[in-house]
């Protein structure tokens, strides 16, 4: 899978980081960094939770 973020929708609310800190981190300037765009194993379910939890629906998963 591959995680993508729509920067026009993301406002750095941080729910993704809270659910999957291995994959996401909000920066001090309010931008979001995806630490690992292609998670594997148990991180895949954390990624799905983060995508579902995003209040602005800015995150997506593209399945390979």
């Amino acid at each position: 899978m591959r995680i993508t973020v729509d920067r026009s929708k993301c406002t750095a609310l941080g729910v993704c980081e809270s659910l999957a800190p291995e994959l996401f981190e909000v920066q001090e300037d309010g931008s979001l960094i995806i630490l690992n765009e292609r998670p594997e194993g148990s991180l895949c379910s954390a990624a799905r939770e983060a995508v579902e939890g995003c209040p602005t629906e800015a995150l997506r998963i593209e399945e390979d």
Partner: protein
Amino acid sequence: MEKDGLVVVGASLAGLRAVESARRLGYSGRITLIGAEEHLPYDRPPLSKEFLASGEPVDPVFRAERALREELGVDLRLGRYATGLDCRQRVVRLGDEEVSYSALVIATGAQARTLPDTAGLRGVHALRTLDDARSVREALDAGARTVIVGAGFIGSEVASAARKRGLPVTLVEAATVPLTRSVGSEMGGLLAELHRRQGVDLRLGAGVQRIDGSGSAESVVLTNGAEIPADLVVVGIGAAPCTGWLEGSGIDLDPRDKGVLCDSTLAVNAPGVYAAGDVCHWISDLFRGRLRLEHWTSAAEQGSLAARNALSLDDAKPYDTVPYFWSDWYDSRIQFVGEPHADDIQVVDKEWEDGKLLALYRKADRLVAALTVNRPTLIMKLRRMIASRASWQEAVEFAEEKVRN
């Protein structure tokens, strides 16, 4: 009478997440979603934020009607009020009609409190629904002199939107310090400074005597006699759970606010019935007691879990969370995690001239909450520390080190 299945009463965020989660987990039975408003389910946080900005309004609707009816296979009943519940017969009443259920999720949310004797006066609005937000937006477009009653988060966001448009704003608050219940009095006082810096006329400790006007609002008269001219009055004095339809049903309601009492799995005291969102009092293990939240994230999570547990799609799972809310005022992103009833609050960082703040909340020897303003990289790390029951010392050391770097 219709075939039973999952019935969700309340078509806002929690209700929508309930039906989405049921389908995602493979439930193939009948799903009925009942909403009191005519609108498709929509997102509320933007209504007091970007929806009020000048220019094209954002569209807050979550899903197209086709996606709900055809892709999710939901029997959508909009503009329909639930009027009663019979837990023994397992039916929800919509006036004369009855909808039977095998599993029920109560997600009727809360409705805005109003000021007495203002019904029918044009220009006086709450800000809870899409219709409210459209009316407020229209008044701002017309350049309204704006008076806001209640300096809570909704009122503060409306003040921000009106000031961004350059309109005169008076913010009236009955308490001497705003936001005491949400963030504590010390921090409430600090946040109020953001309004003053932006030229808002902030009146604290001021009650509203009446709103004058013939047909539409002309002025707000305060209990101290002051009279403030107004074309738009936005009333943001809190919300109360919508549970009138449950009276007499045997469902346990909180004696004070009439919210629905649930156990830790969001189950209500009737078979197959669960609750989610603003109506729901549940038992939090993390904070050792009952909580009721009016937050976006908990409504979404509870909606999803309530449907899962109601349909017994897996072993019943308890709900718990570190409460999280955010609010956008002017150029400040305010974020709060945790439970604000603290023994002590420590300000770790107050670059207040630059608009930044980090405060930690201690109860006994634990970190129980954190407040940040324009410090988005720290807040979720602190949220995780609260979830893992981090000690106060550990939290302070972490925060001080992060602020230094």
